[in-house]
Structures are given as structure tokens and as C-alpha cells.
């Protein structure tokens, strides 16, 4: 059922996800999962890849009102395929009613999504698996102390790029990898923009096939800031254009929020310890310009497309 989230007051007022998990205070990933869960509802089975969220369900507790299956780091989409196939077989053989059916949701971090799990994910898209793939992107291997992943942004210092100019590489474009393979739906979201998120989840749940949701997940411990700033940082990620909010449907990418005018990227960067080396002991103008330029290029290319 489409809920039509038009205003903030349309967002669900009862929250399904239980409190008291072992996750960090201010976790942007948890915020996104909580908002996603409110829209998806409890008739879901979360198939989890190794990462921070694995610690959500620790025996004998779970914050989910629905079901949960932890798999491994590399093969959560294959676990989702096994569950989906089994449910379909049970329905086809009348050993289960349609009312007992579940939405299968992979819950993965960016480390698995952009690295070890990419092969299994790609194959699930190839097969047209009917599932939601929810990636909380905290831009590093957060659960092990924020080592660089393929989703770590250029110039960020991490536990494995701890010195000098931070990560020399660039963040992998997982959204583009997915959309190049024509999934049923793909969207970027962020917990700090709950209305945009709710609309996209609401849309995704009515579509069949592979559906990607990437939530940028501000991470106090990994990014180096106090937990109370998570929402501010999320909003700045959108306003600066660092995290474009967009969706892919019917073969077309649409931006759901075009920041105008764009706040300078350094407003976002300077709040985070992982980028402190861009400002202290002296400003690294070249690297700041490089990062700003990359963001500008993205949006200018979009303008050029019209």
C-alpha cells in the first residue's frame, strides 16, 4: 500500500525497531534502518552480511519484529536468493499461504557491498532476484575500526590510510554499477532526510525485482565527530552535493533533491576528524579544491544533460 508521504507529519509515528542495540550513539546507519523499517513493516526477513549491523541481533535479543538471518560477509544476496526461492517454492506447492510471504531485505555495509559481496550482488541482479538491497554506507570497514573500503572518499583518513593526504583513491560508484545492469529500482537516501527516504522506500516496496537503497551513514566513531552532529552532517552531505539524493526507475535517473546553491564542500569536511588534515596545521588548498572540483563536475554534468 502506498502511504503517500507528502509532509513530515505523514511519516510513521509508531516505530517498529526496538531500542537498546549494541550500535554506537549517533549511528547514521541505524537511523536509516529505523526509518526504512517503519515503512517496510515487520513482514520482512533481513538477510545480513557481516558488518556493524550484525551486532543488532545478539542472542537472545533482536530489535526486529520480523525475521533475521545472518549469513557471512560475501554472500548475503545469495542467502536472500535461497530464502526467496524457498518461499516461492512453498507458495507454488501450496505449503504456505500468500499472506505468510515476506519481503526479503539484504542488510549490508559498504565494505561488503563494494568489495567481497559485489560478485554475489551482481549475480542477484543478473537473476532479477526480487529483493531489497539496503546498504548503509559509512565509507569504511566501520565495525573493525574504520579501515579504508572501496566506498571511502578521496582524502579521508582511515585506520589504514592514517597519514599524509588520506585515501588516494576515489569512492566507488555503487549506484552506477547497479543501474548499468538495469535493476527494477535504485535510490540513494540518508537518514537525515527522512521524508525523501520514506518516499523512496514506499516506492521500492511496490516494485518487484532487484532494488537498491544506499544510505549514506554518518559515523561518529569512524568519521571523527560527536554523535549529536550526525543529522547536521547528513544535511550538509546533501546541501554540499557530496551525497546526491537520486533514484533510478524505468531506465532513468532522477535527482530528488538538487541543492541550489550548493554549500561549499569544506563546510561538510571541516566537521569531521577524518578530514582535519585538510585544515590543520594548514589548509591543504590543492586537496580541498580537488574534492570540491569533483563535486562540481558531477552537478555540472547533470546541468549539461538538462
Amino acid at each position, binding site marked *: 500500500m502506498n502511504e503517500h508521504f507528502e509532509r513530515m507529519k505523514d511519516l510513521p509515528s509508531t516505530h517498529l525497531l526496538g531500542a537498546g542495540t549494541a550500535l554506537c550513539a549517533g549511528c547514521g546507519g541505524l537511523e536509516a534502518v529505523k526509518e526504512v523499517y517503519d515503512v517496510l513493516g*515487520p*513482514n520482512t*526477513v533481513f*538477510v545480513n552480511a557481516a558488518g556493524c549491523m*550484525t*551486532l543488532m*541481533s*545478539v*542472542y537472545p535479543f*533482536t530489535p*526486529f*519484529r*520480523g*525475521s*533475521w*538471518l*545472518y*549469513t*557471512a560477509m*560475501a*554472500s*548475503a*544476496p*545469495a*542467502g*536472500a*536468493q*535461497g*530464502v526467496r*526461492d*524457498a*518461499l*516461492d*517454492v*512453498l507458495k507454488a*506447492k501450496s*505449503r*504456505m499461504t500468500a*499472506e*505468510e*510471504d*515476506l519481503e526479503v531485505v539484504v542488510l549490508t555495509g559498504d565494505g561488503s557491498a563494494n568489495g567481497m559481496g559485489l*560478485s*554475489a550482488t*551482481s*549475480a542477484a541482479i*543478473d*537473476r532479477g532476484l526480487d529483493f531489497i538491497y539496503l546498504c548503509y554506507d559509512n565509507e569504511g570497514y566501520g565495525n573493525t575500526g574504520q579501515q579504508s573500503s572501496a566506498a571511502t572518499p578521496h582524502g579521508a583518513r582511515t585506520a589504514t590510510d592514517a597519514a599524509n593526504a588520506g585515501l588516494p583513491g576515489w569512492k566507488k560508484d555503487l549506484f552506477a554499477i547497479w543501474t548499468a545492469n538495469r535493476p527494477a529500482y535504485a535510490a540513494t537516501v540518508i537518514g537525515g532526510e527522512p521524508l525523501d527516504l520514506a518516499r523512496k522506500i514506499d516506492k521500492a516496496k511496490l516494485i518487484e525485482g532487484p532494488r537498491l537503497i544506499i544510505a549514506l551513514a554518518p559515523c561518529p566513531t569512524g568519521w571523527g565527530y560527536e554523535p549529536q552532529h550526525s543529522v547536521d552532517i547528513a544535511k550538509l552531505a546533501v546541501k554540499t552535493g557530496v551525497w546526491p539524493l537520486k533514484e533510478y526507475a524505468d531506465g532513468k535517473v532522477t535527482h530528488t533533491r538538487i541543492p541550489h546553491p550548493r554549500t561549499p564542500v569544506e563546510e561538510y569536511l571541516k566537521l569531521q576528524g577524518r578530514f582535519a588534515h585538510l585544515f590543520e596545521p594548514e589548509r591543504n588548498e590543492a586537496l580541498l579544491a580537488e574534492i570540491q572540483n569533483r563535486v562540481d563536475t558531477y552537478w555540472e554534468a547533470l546541468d549539461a544533460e538538462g
Partner: protein
Amino acid sequence: MTRQLMTGNAAAAWGARLADIDYVPAFPITPQTEIIETLSRWIGEDALAARMTMFESEHSMITAAGAAAATGVRVFTATSSQGLLYGMEMLYAVAGWRAPFVLVNVSRGLAAPITLEPDHNDIMAARDSGFLQIHCATCQEVLDQMLIGYRMGEDAGVRLPVIVNLDGFYLSFTREPVDLPEKPAVDAFLPPFDPGPTRFRAGKPVSQAVAVLGGAPYSYFRYEVELAARAALNVYDEVAEAFATQFGRRHDAVEAYRCDDAEIVFVMIGSFATKAREAVDRLREAGTAAGLVRPVLLRPFPEAKLRAALRGKKAAVVVDQNISIGKGGVLHCELASALYGQKGAPGALLSFIGGLGGRDIGAEEFFEMAAVAAKAAETGETPPPRLLYTGHELREMRKLQAIAHVEHAEAGETP
């Protein structure tokens, strides 16, 4: 019941078909591929009401197998060698999920060097995973053991996945006469899979495979798996008995051939044990009281039955078709742990490595092993583990090396 000539792979496919499997996650690998191709054809012809999904790796395939079993359907899958190792992480994981299904492994030696032919290093690597293991010596056993495997693994007191192992080429591609059971008889023997409360349904939430914090809960769940595997010793006997009643074929956990009055007993698993069986007959003709003990069930390890079969023997000769590099034969180590300090244990326990990468073990080698064992029993001195290799093989190998040297030298001359 009809009798047909069929390969071990076809027998495995028939076992899956007769077991009314619901789901086949699949990935091709030699020499297993014929199994999934056969199942795919039957599904296409509506001869089998199952769904097959092709995965991009064995790691994913085994994940899906466990996930589907955890959702409440009967699952079959198959692999070999590198594939089993590629999926190794998930073997351990899904066994811990207590999600029963049957995986056929068609044994094949491991790289490097890469080969297609059989030995048991692949399946031995899965030894500690929590999968129960049944080792087949004939195509008939492959079919029968799949039915036994489902009933044992799905037993409420066991609930563990099962590997049914057959040797590549020697069974996978070799046609043997196989009695194909009638479907009603199979249905009488093997009830539909009852997943119990462990399944995913809307309105009945469950959390499976959750994390634990601390050694005490971790140990508790690991011990539960161990105790379930031990319980499978009795369950196997009961199921094999029921199978014998239903179909008239006995599949004891440990096969003992001409052992009652034997003095020297070979211990082997899999199809190469039939070579030992033949050698036992020849040795008997030549006046040596030889016998053969073949563990069919390897996990759980049927220790009591092995002790009983080997009690009072002069020597036991373990021929391992695997090699734990730096130690030797895995089966030999397991036998030693089962026999050490036991009353009536064989006077000598000898270790030989043979049959790696499909290398034959000839009758003359069995004669030699028996002679070495007799001497060890007589002198009380056990020789060190021996790697079987004949002078002829070494001469042929030297020829290959000579060619390689020539090729190398010629290549060196041209820039």
C-alpha cells in the same frame, strides 16, 4: 524396482529426484556437473517438481542451500574439489544454522598442481565443518545413501547437513548396475521434510544464525552441534536398519569384509576400497589372512564399531587417499586416536598414502603392504608412513622431466 546401468552422477541425481527435493542451488564443476545437468533436464520435463537456481560461486550456492533449508524446503546441491573449498566458510556456517540438506561431493584432488582426478583432500578439508559425511564405494550406495542421508540429517535429534561423497571418474563417470527403488517405497522410507518451527513466515518471526557475545554461549551452541553429530551415530544405525527392511540392502556404518578371522586388515574409504576388497581375496588365496574395514560413515566417526572390527588383529593398514602435508594420512591419525590405549587394539597400525589424483593402487602394492604389516606385527616395530609409488611410475615421471628440461633449454636459447 528396476535395475539400470548408471553412472555415480546419475545415481546421485536419481537419489535427489526420489527424495522429492524442492530446491537445487547449483554451480558447475568437473566431475560433478552431470548431476545438475540431469536435474535441470528433469525439471524442464516436469519429471521433478523442483526449482534450480544457478549461482556465481559455490560460496553463494552453499549460502543459498542453507538459507532455503532454513526457510523450510528440502534442498539438494553438489560440488567437487576447488568448489567445496571455495564454499568452505559457508559449510561451517550452515552446519551451525542446523539447516539440514544433502550435498553430494564428487571427490577430486586439490590444486596445485590442478587436476581433475580423484582423491580425498577436498572432503577431508570439510571434516571439521559440522556436515555429517557418508563415503560411497559403489553407484548403488550413492543412490541409497542420499535417501539415508536426508532421513538422518532431518532427524529431529540431528538436524545437520550431510555430505554424500563419491569419487570422481571411478564412480562419477563409471556405469554400474543400480537398483532403482520404486517411488512409493521411497515415500514410505523418507517422510516429507518437517522444518519444525525453524522457518521464515510472516507473522511468525524468527532470528536465525544470530551473533553471540562471549565464550559460554558460543561453546554451548558449538557443543550442541557436536552432541547432535554424536547422536547421529545411533540415528544412522536406525535409519540404515529401516532402509534394509524397506529395500533389502544393508549399509552398515562400517563395512567389515572377511574380517572375522583376519590377521592383517586394510582400512580404506570410498571406491578405492573395492581395490582392497579384491586384494583381500587374492591375499587369502595366497595364504594371508587379510581383511578390509571400510568406514562408510566418517562423521560422526564410528569409533566403537571400528574398535570392534579391529579388535585382536595383528596389524591394521590404513591406506589414505589424502595427505595432511607435514603429517601424513588423515584417516590414519583418526584410527590411531580411536585405538590408542584400547584393549585388543591391533599390534601395529601402519600408514600408507596412495591414490592421490586418481593414481592407481595395484594388487602388488596391497601384497607389499600386507608383507610390511606382517613384519611389523612380528617385530613390534612400526615403519614410518610410506608414500606409495612404483619404480615404473618413477621412470615414466623421469621421462616427463627429461622432456620438460629439453623444452626449457630450447626455450632458453631463443630470446
